[in-house]
């Protein structure tokens, strides 16, 4: 099977030849090329070369055509602060609440960072065709405001100005759909919809249902391709039914959550991906890597509908390549269907 066939079979809630593995790697591409993180993301060619090098090294089942979250905020007038040992941070929030009433989505073509992402996705699609799924990324309309406004100002808006909150969701949903569709047109096969604030750990589900879910439904229905919702380490069980009704096909599971329980709740409706602990992965030895991979497969892989991945949607820079190789090897070895003696 090609990676694409393997993934599509799993998404159909059937068992492929082995459990698909998504190593959601961004920063490690810089290390593959011997570049600083800032230098690496300054050119689409670097990201193409980095992603292809990691595909060869690990033999996993996706290309992760994501640069960093702050690129979206740059399009809204924000900035990026680079560091040499982790993901770039968004700089000062570019929006104030009083600007929301007249806010319009930015033009994609006027955002150099987003244009670089599209160029990379074109290059990656040219390189792998339809043999390996290329995953693009959007920030959800409900979660993007953490960077647009700052987290506390955003929570204040949600509670104090529901009128402006609704307006922001409409503007952001339009931008989100346009950005997702541009990535699909450029070469991405699917879009990962990052929505950490959808997690009940972050926002009261009643607020999510008032603001976040309608925006998700609007954006996901407008994106003309398959989507996967990721709560970026946040627990999802409390909103699984909402996610299933939002139009997404997959859900990313956080590390604090019972993977088997999530799989059981999602079974036949949503494909589950997760939930290796990327923070702890920094210090795994080979035995730990094998145990963690086996544990996740044991919990959720039976019957398909499962992709092995990390909990957060991005593996930390501090995780050594050797550990990633051990994870990939363990997934190949212990993820072969039919599975032996598993419970999930």
């Amino acid at each position, binding site marked *: 099977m090609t990676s694409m066939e393997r993934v599509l079979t799993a998404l159909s809630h059937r068992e492929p030849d082995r459990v698909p593995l998504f190593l959601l790697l961004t920063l490690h591409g810089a290390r593959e090329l011997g570049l600083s993180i800032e230098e690496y993301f300054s050119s689409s060619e670097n990201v193409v070369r980095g992603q292809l090098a990691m595909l060869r090294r690990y033999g996993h089942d996706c290309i992760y055509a994501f640069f960093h979250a702050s690129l979206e905020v740059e399009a809204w007038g924000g900035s990026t*602060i680079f*560091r040499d*040992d*982790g*993901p770039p*941070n*968004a*700089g*000062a929030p570019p929006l104030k609440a009083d600007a929301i009433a007249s806010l319009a989505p930015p033009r994609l073509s006027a955002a150099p960072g987003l244009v670089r992402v599209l160029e990379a996705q074109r290059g990656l699609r040219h390189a792998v065709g339809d043999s390996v799924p290329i995953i693009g990324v959007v920030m959800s309309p409900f979660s993007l405001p953490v960077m647009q406004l*700052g*987290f*506390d100002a955003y*929570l*204040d808006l*949600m*509670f104090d100005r529901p009128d402006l909150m609704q307006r922001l969701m409409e503007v952001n949903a339009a931008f989100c759909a346009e950005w997702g569709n541009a990535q699909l047109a450029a070469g991405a096969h699917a879009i990962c919809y990052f929505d950490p604030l959808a997690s*009940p*750990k*972050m*926002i*009261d*589900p009643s*607020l999510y249902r008032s603001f976040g879910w309608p925006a998700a439904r609007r954006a996901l229905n407008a994106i003309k391709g398959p989507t996967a919702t990721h709560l970026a*380490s946040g*627990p999802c069980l*409390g909103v699984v039914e909402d996610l299933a009704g939002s139009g997404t096909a997959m859900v990313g599971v956080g*590390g*604090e959550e019972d993977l088997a329980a999530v799989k059981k709740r999602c079974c036949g409706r949503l494909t589950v991906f997760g939930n290796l*602990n990327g*923070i*702890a992965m*920094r*210090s795994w030895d080979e035995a730990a890597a094998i145990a963690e991979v086996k544990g996740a497969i044991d919990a959720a892989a039976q019957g398909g509908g499962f992709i092995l991945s990390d*909990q957060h949607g991005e593996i*930390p*820079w*501090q995780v050594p390549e050797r550990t990633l190789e051990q994870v990939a090897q363990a997934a190949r070895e212990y993820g072969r269907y039919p599975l032996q003696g598993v419970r999930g």
Partner: protein
Amino acid sequence: MIVSYPAGHLSDVPARPSADLLELALVNMDRLALQRIYSASGLTPLFFCEQFITPALAGIGEKWDRGELSLSHVYMSGRLCEDFMEQSFRGAPSNRVSEERVALAVLEDYHLLGKRLVGFVLRGGGVDYLDYGTVTAAELVQRVQEDSVRVLLISALMLPSALKVREVRDKLDQAGVPCRIIVGGAPFRLDPSLCDEVGADFCCATASQVLPALIQASGGEP
């Protein structure tokens, strides 16, 4: 989501004001009930903070830790208490939970919500502290030395920021500065071994755990 409080209902306020009822009022964002509970308590601002606000915020933090409430509840509860103290007492009354100088900082990270949540708890507990905002490890060590800080609170959302605590610990030790470090934030929740790895003295799973940790750091019982 569990938002049930066996201790009573908000209509009980006039007869039996309690920290449980205050918790319910905060989770429901009921400013009026908060004011009524304060009035019915008959307590001075200092004792109201000690006996009502601190345990109510701690209860909300514990429920968040157990997955029964959301961070939005934690934030709004803290904001309501802060607003209330500002309006009713013109700020928090001072209560020497710690006799030692305390500072709060974020290391090379621009995610400041965690720091604000800790600030709510500190003010609710009447703790005076220095707010250093976002600083580098070198700046932090220098300011700790200049201000003779003896308990340093560091909030982290990103893993690289959490790992920077090690640099602070080492520099403080090299300089012979007797300062205890209390850490908290997502990386420490996701990998509890990180606390020892970076040389922190105490690790808080929630913002509200900072008060017992401060007492311990000052040599008392939590």
